[in-house]
């Protein structure tokens, strides 16, 4: 089985996996980094969102082979005190919480790119992340809150 060297959350991992295996399953089943979630397997729900070189990607659709030499960040690599997590905490956004790690990764990528996003920009960046508990109102407000705090 092929072997891959991956840089995840500033740690170097060596894993054996089929080259077509999506990074989501490498994280979950091989490395026990289970904060990235499985929701749909076809990039429709965003629960598996991670950062590759700072860009949000759907981990369920990206094969491990494509990620050697890239910088990967998962929810486990985002500090607890990160302004986005703080605003999520302040507004008590999560209900079941299953989609929220993906939501947070999408929100961080948005704010890194656009520190003061407009309503349309928030909608566009977050539209790929489904929440069936329906926490959208709080997600929008938490992004605005984090945007304020990041600048301050």
């Amino acid at each position, binding site marked *: 089985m092929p072997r891959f060297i991956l840089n995840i959350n500033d740690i170097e991992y060596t894993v054996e996996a089929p080259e077509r295996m999506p990074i989501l399953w490498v994280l*979950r089943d091989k490395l026990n980094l289970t904060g990235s979630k499985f929701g749909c397997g076809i990039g429709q729900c965003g629960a598996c969102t991670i950062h590759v070189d700072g860009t949000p990607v759907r981990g369920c659709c990206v094969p491990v082979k494509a990620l050697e030499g890239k910088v990967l960040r998962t*929810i486990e690599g985002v500090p607890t005190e990160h302004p986005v997590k703080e605003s999520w905490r302040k507004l*008590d956004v999560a209900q079941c919480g299953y989609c929220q790690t993906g939501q947070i990764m999408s929100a961080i990528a948005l704010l890194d790119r656009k520190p003061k996003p407009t309503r349309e920009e928030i909608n566009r960046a977050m539209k790929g992340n489904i929440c069936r*508990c329906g926490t959208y109102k709080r997600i*929008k407000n938490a992004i605005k809150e984090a945007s304020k705090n990041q600048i301050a």
Partner: protein
Amino acid sequence: MKRRFFIQTVSLGSSGFALGAAVPFLGSNDSLGKKVVFEPNLLMSLGEDGIVRFKYTRHEMGQGSFTGLAMIFAEELGADWEKIQVSQADYDEKYGNRLYGNTGGSGTVRRMWEPLRELAATARTMLISAAAEKMNVPTEECFANNGLVIHKPSKQRVPFGELASLASHQEVPKTVTFRDVADYNIIGTPKKNLNQDKILDGKLQYSMDVVVDNMVYACIVRAPIMGLDVISFNAEEVKNIEGVVDVLQVSNRLKEVDESDTKTSMRNGVAVIAKDTWTAFEAAEKLQVEWTDSPLENGNMESIENDLAMAKGNSATYTIFETGDVVDEFKNTTSTFSRTYRNPFQAHALMEPMCATADYKKDRCEVWSSTQHPNRILQRTGKVVDRPISFFLLHNLPCGGSFGRRFYDDFITEAVVLSKMLKRPVKVVWNRKDEIATSGYHALQEEEHTVSLGENGKILGWRLREYMSAQTEELQWAFPFQIYYNTQRLQEVVQVPFRLPIMAWRSVQAHPHALGLESFVDELAKYLGKDPLDYRLELLENQIEFPKSFGEKRFEVNFNSVKEILVPRAIRVYKELSRLRNQYVTSNGENTLGFAGHSFGPTFAGQMAEISLENNKLQVHKITCVVDCGLVINPQLAANQIEGSIIWGLSALYYNNITLKEGKVEQQNFHDYKVLRIDKSPEVEVIFLKNEDAPSGIGEPGVPPVAPAILNAICNATGKRIRKLPIIGIDNLELA
């Protein structure tokens, strides 16, 4: 509002409950190795460190009762909220149905309200006795608050931790007095979701995250139609795929058993066992299964339409209730008004697909999964492997959404059966298409309302015929209360032979019921030339004598609770909505309004939808929800529930539609089973009416009014009435 339960003294002897659950004993070790010195009941222990450890005996699925139940317990104990530690209890029959019953029907807080306060008050009474003994003062002069017992006259105080040992020697009281709502300092405050921190760091463990030594992963190809069986499959070819461990047939051994209460919801299928989830998923794609034939006389949407049309001429399968001779009334009047509304099949599409891990050994089977009904599930799973409930150790983990789906045993039974066959731990993971296409569904249902009208539009008789699948009868506990009793009423069910398995779904029967009733009342008001919102209040405030008995006694309807709790709540909610409407009109609001309200259990929720329709593009700008749910335990988490319910209702109104072709579900994933995304989520405001009655449930009541409120608004804007869900074309609305 009248105080019904505060400053209430409860005799524990009469229920035998707190005493039965009380097991005072001295000096044991809990699972953390911490010395426990006061363990007055099955749910609580107090150590010398002053930490109160509370066990949560329900299922947390995002509704927040993990936090809410702890708040109720801590409040009644007089504890310091910062010193409460909550953990999930494994399922154990020792808790009984009262402490570890099912989680559903928005009933966790409602059903645990009394037992939790009895247990906590008992423990508090013992702590106070211990403190009085220690301070050498009369118990009557002491009270507990914020983790301290305080001697009122001297202001001496003793922290709970210092009383732990002494409290365990106190006599268990025969009666206890509940704390006064005026003294509450935990209930009614916005405490954070206790799982929030773990969630944000990706550390909350869901069923999907379970890892057990030596475990293998299973993906099951299930019968595309419930009841089909496996004839053959290409086992050898799939077994040769790298990473595949085995390929096994799983069969529902109980298919002959027809008693609904013992029937497993598991489908027949073929399981691919692999060394990781992805390999199991991929190999399952290569599996070719030949299934037995099925007579599919109603396997297509056309045949379902035909069956529904045929059913219109059929007499009722059963009557839910009947007061007076409504049918006779119809014969005698010339003027009737009748409309029919349709709810389609809908899937749950919960974020975390179902998952269960089982480790089946000779003397015990350990299970890691998420279930709303551990007792029933283990009973059913147990029947399949011929073992009693006590054979199982079930770790009931928080789940990524359930909405009724995890009431059913199939995914757990599958893991148990496979682990037994393989003699090693097996984790069964459902793929998204399994969850959308081979599950159970919210039922397709038609609601046909007919009234006969006398002079001045007086309603003389009101008939509701509900056309529904036979299996829906299992959900009769969720049949909503009737709140309009202005006339003789008849409610009857005509069963239609749909073959799709039916399951509970957030707000269950209240969803189709509200769609029908609250659209119909609006239509009727307009037909009579009345304002729909005023008309609802007119109906509610001019009720005839409530029926004492009715038709066949197969449905438990507590008319007293309808009359004394629900109708006054509905009136208060609609009056508040009237006030909001006046405010909106006075402030020159530009959008069109629509209103609807409905009950779920004893909770009543009413909504005002603000919409606009430019060039047929529907925009829902804001939904304001007014709720009367009795005492609000946690205003923050309760508001979350209503906000989420509205998003759930919008998904149902805009998109959710499961269709059949040759008996099989046509949808597979989020691309063809759409749900609401953030860009279409409106502004939401939640208003809780102040009420100190017992808390009555918050997880589902926000759902039912959404569709009718918006459909009523659409009709107000266009004059056109949509009577079928989902609506077609949000951006270019199709108006019949």
